[in-house]
């Protein structure tokens, strides 16, 4: 089975993806890779985790069910966060600057199903958050 690092490396080969990080609910960065971009690991871990947490609370308050993924679109890129369960990793790729009529996420790619990648920690049993930053 490929390691988390190997899987992250594969994700970085997707056109436009320049950062891929696996983060626990506690903000602990389990692993992360970039295409040379500077990364403050602790800061990223905290903002991903709290960002997902806030989005989950928003969904709960608005009664729209459990969160499956989140995306934020910025001037120079997209941040995508989805949940990594025991059974599968879902990766998404997209473009940061859309042409009129173009979907933000033109392709959806489900990566091969794998067991838990040994991410099943005491309190990280359900999911971890992924972030892909900087789609071009």
């Amino acid at each position: 089975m490929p390691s988390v690092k190997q899987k992250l490396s594969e994700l970085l080969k997707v056109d436009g993806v320049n950062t891929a990080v696996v983060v626990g609910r506690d903000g602990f960065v389990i692993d992360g890779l970039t295409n040379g971009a500077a990364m403050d690991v602790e800061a990223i871990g905290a903002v991903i985790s709290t960002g997902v947490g806030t989005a989950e609370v928003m969904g709960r308050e608005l009664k729209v069910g459990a969160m499956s993924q989140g995306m934020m679109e910025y001037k120079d890129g997209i941040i995508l966060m989805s949940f990594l369960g025991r059974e599968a990793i879902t990766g998404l790729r997209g473009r940061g600057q859309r042409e009129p009529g173009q979907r933000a996420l033109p392709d959806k790619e489900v990566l091969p199903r794998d067991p838990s990648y040994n991410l099943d920690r005491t309190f990280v049993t359900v999911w971890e958050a992924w972030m892909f930053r900087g789609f071009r």
Partner: protein
Amino acid sequence: MATDRIDTRAVQGVLYGIYKALHGVVGENSAAVMRRAAPDILDMLGKLGVDFSCVDDVNKLSAKLGETMVQAGMCENMAFTLNGSDLTADITQCSFYPLTMKLKEEGIPPFGCPFAEEGIPPFGCPFAALTIAIAEKNLGKRARLKFLEPVGKPGDTRLIVELTDK
């Protein structure tokens, strides 16, 4: 100033509001905020004269942090053991137990001690936060809370922090 007369009830009242609001906004991922806060807690303690800079190995961490927590009235005792990469701390009679119980009643993952639910990291535990912060800053390790549950009498707690090389 009456800094030598601080009542733990006042501290628990303030913390209750902060933790409840934090949980209301960030939900189950509140632990990430505490992890982020831990180095700043350490820095502020240093500025207030509670200095951990002498801690450069696990034995000193055990002695200094345990002694400081007891002197500060946070608990009656804090004893560490290192087993492989797991640093275990046994905390006796945590002073924030009433706060823990109140949070539990409201379904909020606890401040400190017991009742951490599976899949939800406990957050806010100052013992864990300081252990993690000192291990990462002074010992050059990566540290992650692995276990936090009650043991023994009400108020007694065991926490385990996993230490890995950076």
